[in-house]
């Protein structure tokens, strides 16, 4: 493995991650030195734009566009914030954990370089509370970086000062939504906020704020060191998208795991070559391309490139890019029930369609699973998919929740129909017309 083909993971060591000196001896913090010495903040943003870096948290939004909305220059607010979304909790996703546990200094360096680009005054790594080992390792790396002058007042003797903190959460999925994350960081309930104003204008404590995913940020130092052209070449012409991607597979496959591969490899390559295919005696039934909130795809979609546009064209979303594989021993209704139970429990309860609609879907799915569904149940589920869809709710939680549901009904309608109880034959009762009520 080398920096040229596996920039994100070539220095990963889960047993004993590199300390500051070890990291520095392998190009660590070289990007900080280069950016602060040779580049204007706008040049860093421009380079990230040229590289075509898109967000790895699930939405694929161009990183430089996000940064480009931050007010810059003399008249910009003095306080600006860079937040790292390390609240990895999308079911089926286990990539950011590896980056933080395996090479914590890389994320610290990435925060510094990216913070410099937007001239942030402070950064916070919003880490989920359950990632105890990642917290320990990040704190240690942070202390080392601070002692070495990479953080604090006048970073490496430049006029720019930057402080960085690790903030650990206390559970729940919703802080992964960027405005809910900001509320949570402010010490409030993690309800999402209305947009606009966008966080880049008024985010944390009302100041310009950028929220980026761990994997997204970790690409930035490599782009600064090796350039945009190199980054675009990493996908080896397989995709319009640039760079590498952490792809993974979970479910009943031979070798579940995580691999850094060129952006745009096919799902088949990930599943068959890297994960070794399905376990003996099992067949692939369907798969989620990138987390619980993406639409199911079928075996015939395996040859598609795992990139944002291709997976979108097939009617799903690449999401986090980690496949969850459902085998043919499973009833789709029970798998979808599991997914919707998750979304119902994790709804913050702020808006009615989400708070009430998701538990309703769970009740119907439980009835269908038990063979006690009623005629009309599938239509009700379809109606819920529309009522909880994009534009009907406060944030993306419920629209994400209905993606696996709507696609499961589309591909496996028969299994849903099989859950509807057959009405017992009713004896025919002759009824006289009811007498009219007396006035």
């Amino acid at each position, binding site marked *: 493995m080398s920096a040229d083909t596996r920039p994100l993971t070539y220095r990963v060591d889960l047993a004993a991650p590199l300390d500051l000196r070890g990291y520095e001896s392998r190009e660590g913090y070289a990007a900080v030195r280069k950016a602060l010495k040779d580049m204007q903040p706008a040049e860093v943003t421009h380079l990230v734009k040229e590289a075509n870096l898109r967000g790895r948290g699930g939405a694929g939004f161009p990183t430089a566009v996000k940064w480009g909305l931050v007010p810059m220059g003399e008249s910009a607010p003095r306080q600006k914030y860079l937040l790292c979304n390390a609240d990895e909790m999308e079911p089926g996703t286990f990539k950011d954990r590896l980056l933080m546990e395996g090479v914590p200094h890389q994320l610290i360096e990435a925060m510094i370089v990216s913070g410099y680009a937007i001239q942030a005054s402070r950064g916070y790594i919003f880490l989920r509370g*359950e990632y105890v080992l990642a917290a320990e390792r990040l704190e240690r790396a942070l202390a080392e970086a601070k002692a070495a002058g990479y953080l604090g007042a006048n970073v490496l003797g430049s006029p720019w000062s930057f402080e960085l903190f690790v903030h650990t959460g206390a559970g729940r999925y919703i802080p992964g939504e960027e405005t809910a994350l900001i509320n949570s*960081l*402010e010490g409030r*309930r*993690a309800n999402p906020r209305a947009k606009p104003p966008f966080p880049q204008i008024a985010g944390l404590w009302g100041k310009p704020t950028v929220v980026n995913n761990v994997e997204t940020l970790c690409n930035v130092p490599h782009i600064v060191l090796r350039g945009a052209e190199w980054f675009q070449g990493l996908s080896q012409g397989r995709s319009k998208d640039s760079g590498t991607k952490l792809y993974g597979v*979970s479910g009943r496959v031979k070798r*579940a795991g995580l691999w850094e591969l060129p952006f745009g490899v096919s799902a088949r390559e990930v599943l068959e070559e890297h994960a070794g295919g399905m376990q003996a005696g099992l067949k692939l039934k369907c798969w989620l391309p990138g987390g619980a909130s993406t639409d199911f795809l079928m075996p015939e979609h395996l040859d598609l490139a795992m990139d944002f546009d291709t997976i979108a064209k097939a009617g799903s979303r690449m999401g986090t890019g980690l496949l*969850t594989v459902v085998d043919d021993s*499973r009833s789709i209704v029970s798998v979808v029930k*599991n997914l919707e139970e998750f979304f119902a429990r994790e709804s913050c309860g702020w808006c009615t369609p989400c708070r009430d609609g998701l538990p309703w879907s769970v009740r119907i799915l439980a009835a269908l699973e038990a063979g006690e569904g009623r005629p009309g149940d599938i239509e009700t589920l379809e109606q819920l998919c529309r009522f909880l869809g994009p534009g009907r709710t406060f944030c993306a939680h419920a629209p994400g929740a209905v993606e696996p549901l709507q696609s499961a009904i589309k591909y496996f309608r028969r299994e849903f129909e099989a859950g509807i109880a057959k009405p017992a034959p009713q004896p025919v009762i002759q009824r006289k017309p009811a007498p009219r009520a007396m006035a």
Partner: protein
Amino acid sequence: MSAALAPQNIAPSTAQEPYVLHLEDRAAIEREMLHYEDRRAASIGALKIVQKRHGWVPDEAIPAVGQVLGISAAEVEGVATFYPLIFRRPVGRHVIKVCDSVACFLTGYEEVRDAVRKSLSVGFGETTADGRFTLLPICCLGACDKGPVLMIDEDTHFEVSPEDVARLLERYP
């Protein structure tokens, strides 16, 4: 019956002692506050500090935390009840959190859950009679390639099989 006529042989209920934050906890919360430009941002951290001392966050601690942070008890309670890793009821000496999200569900969550429930004779949200374990569900722990996964206190256990459960629990007296 008015208070004046109350039988004299019944001791008047003693007013509850106001909760005083332990000095160390107060200092830890104040250190935490330095990380933020608004002190209420330390509310989750403060609740975790209190919880570390008691195993949970007692009712009386809520206003005390609010006082340090400069926010109302109701706001502290709002935060405390939103986040599942803050416990507002007493829990056992050890807290077991079993991942019930989709990847673990596909790789054997139900069998592991049943083994834990059987071994402890409690359901989710309950504590064993001896006060040793509390059992809770938790969402995806980000180790989907190593499912089924569960946490006991701060330790994450991977590829748990139903047969492992009894031996695993023995490690937490």
